[in-house]
Every structure is written in C-alpha cells, then in structure tokens.
C-alpha cells in the first residue's frame, strides 16, 4: 500500500521519479518507520508494505 492505495512491487526511487516527487521536499515512512533518504534508491516496496509519502508545500 502506498498512501492508502494498493500497488505492485516497485523500487521506491523509481516510483518517486515516476510520480514527480521532489525528493528534497518529502518524507517517507515504511511500516511505521521513517526511511532515510540515503536508502530510497535501494528500497523495493513490496505489496504487503505500508508506505506513507508526505510532500511539503511552502508557506508559513
């Protein structure tokens, strides 16, 4: 599951690129644990993983 939607196995970095995420504006949690940015490239999301991707917008 990625942000509540089912998804097939995918490399995280490829998924983020495909969806147009700016890596410097996001935080990613996998199964309740924050994932360091250095691990995005090597991380494969499996179908039973629960992934939350949060993207920040400017203003304050």
């Amino acid at each position, binding site marked *: 599951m990625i942000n509540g939607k089912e998804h097939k196995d995918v490399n995280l970095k490829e998924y983020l690129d495909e969806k147009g995420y700016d890596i410097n504006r*996001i*935080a990613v949690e996998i199964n309740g644990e924050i994932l360091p940015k250095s691990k995005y490239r090597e991380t494969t999301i499996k179908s039973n993983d629960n992934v939350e991707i949060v993207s*920040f*917008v400017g*203003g304050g």
Partner: protein
Amino acid sequence: MKIIFNGKSVNTSVKYAHELGEGNIIVNGYEIHTPYILKEGDNVVIFKKGQVPKREQFTSMISARNNMDTKKLLNASVVICGLGGLGSNIAVMLGRAGVGHLCLIDYDIVDITNLNRQYYFTKHIGMLKTDAICEIISEINPYIETEKINIKIDEDNIKDLFEGISNHKSQIDGPPTGASHLVAPLKPNPKKSYDFLGALGQGVHCPPSVQWTDTPQAYGLGGQDGKPNGVQVICEAFDNPYAKALLVNYVLENHPHKKLVCGSGMAGLYSSNLIQTKRVMKNLYICGDETNEAKIGEGLTAPRVSICAGHEANMILRLINDMEEV
C-alpha cells in the same frame, strides 16, 4: 472538602464559591454569575478585574479559563522552529495557554512584509524575531521560560543544533513525557549554550544567543527525581518546503520518540475548511490543506495562516495532555 483555590490545594468548609473571596469567579474553566455550591476537587479562581495578580497567583489565574492540568502545561517544553506567520502565532498561543518552556528558533529580523500575518508590530521592525516574540510573550505572561536560538537551520548545522538543545534545558531525549518528571527550572548555563551555538557561528545571520527569562520559581514544581524535563513536542513552522522536509526527516530519524507537528499548505484565499490536522505518520502530524503553496500570484494572509497556526497549537496542547489522536 478539598478544592483548588487560586492554584493552591486548600481545605474549606464554605458552601458557596463566592464565600471564598470577592471578585469574578471561575469554576473549572467557566466564569459563573449565579451562586455555585462547591464540590470536592473543584478548581476555583477568584480575581479582581483590572488588577494584575501577584506572581504566586498569576499562573493559576491566567490559566483559569483553560480547564487543563496546569502542572502538565508548566512542565511542558516545546521547540518552535521558525517564527514567521505560523511560528509567531503558535508561540503566542502556547504562551497564552501557559506552556512552561518554549525554545524559539529563527535567524531573521522582523520586516514590513511580515506584518500582514505575523504576530509583530511596527515597533519590532529590525528586531530579531526571537527577541520580538519573547518580548510579546513576556508581556502576556512574564513567567513563561523562553530560550532563544538565532540560527538558520540547514543540513550542516541541524545535528549540532539538536544535540545542543538535548544537552541543554530542553533535553530532546529526556523522558518521552515530561508530565511525570516534574523538575525544578534549571539555571541557564551560558557557557554551554555558547559552546553549542558557537560551533554554528559560520553562516549565522545574527549573533547566536540563548537568553532566559526570569527563573519561574512561582511554578513551585520542585525537582523530584533529578531528571531533566523532556521536550514533548517539536513544532515545524518554517516557510521553506525544503527546510520543512529537512527538519521532519532529521527529527523522525534521530529522535524517534518525539512528536512533530508541521504546517503545510495555507496560501491563497481558499476555504478555511480545507485546512485540517492529520496524523500522517506515527509521530508526524500535518496541519494545512497540503496543497496550496506560497508562490508568485499566491500570497499568504493572516486568516489562513492563523487558522493553520491554530491547528498546530491545538494539536500541541492535545499532545501535552496525552491526546494523540487529531
């Protein structure tokens, strides 16, 4: 019968609240205007309109309408990162609520373009935001303990900054909740403060300083186990989305037991009702519409920024009171 009267636990045999003294009467957070029969455990504050109470009564009186656990508030410690439209309003709201310790971080000075939404006045133009907001809070409640850190947080200094805070009063890695670890307010240790900030000197826009307001003896919460109080909540209140993401990733990776409350999406003149509080991760709450970004043609105004700040401040007060759900 045991009640709390003007912040102190007392035994009383009187029947009615108005027999306790003259003045306006607040019972359990609500001002009464008709005779009220006292019950065991009631929290009663009686004050005289137009008078500033003495120090011993100030805390109980200023919190009279909160109806919250005053000890939890006094022992609470919140780090506010950024003192712009979000942070300046959040700091003032938490100060009004009576949060005992606020660590306020910003590098900038107040300028004319801030006044449309930030909690500053024309007299503050040119002042460091940390100084200006501490002045404002001290005029609301002089017994809030404030710590000022003048720094622009970036990738190179964030580790030292938070280690510095954790070596200092705020104790990032203290007990997860300060509520059960009441502790005497610590005296500032200027040397240590300057040690950790000194390391951050390069690139800092303004001379770093950590200053403390009056030591709040009035709190009367003596050290019980000698352990420092822990920072309960870290509040993200930056303008820049990259700074927001930097702080969130750093805190969640390095302080996995801390709760983090953020703002994201409050620009434009869109509906107030789009702004929400969401618990998006175990320890991460986001307030805002998560969509409307400040950009060319999309400004920031006092109402929407303040609504978002209100969401953040309310979530922080809820967390201080052990309410983790939004």
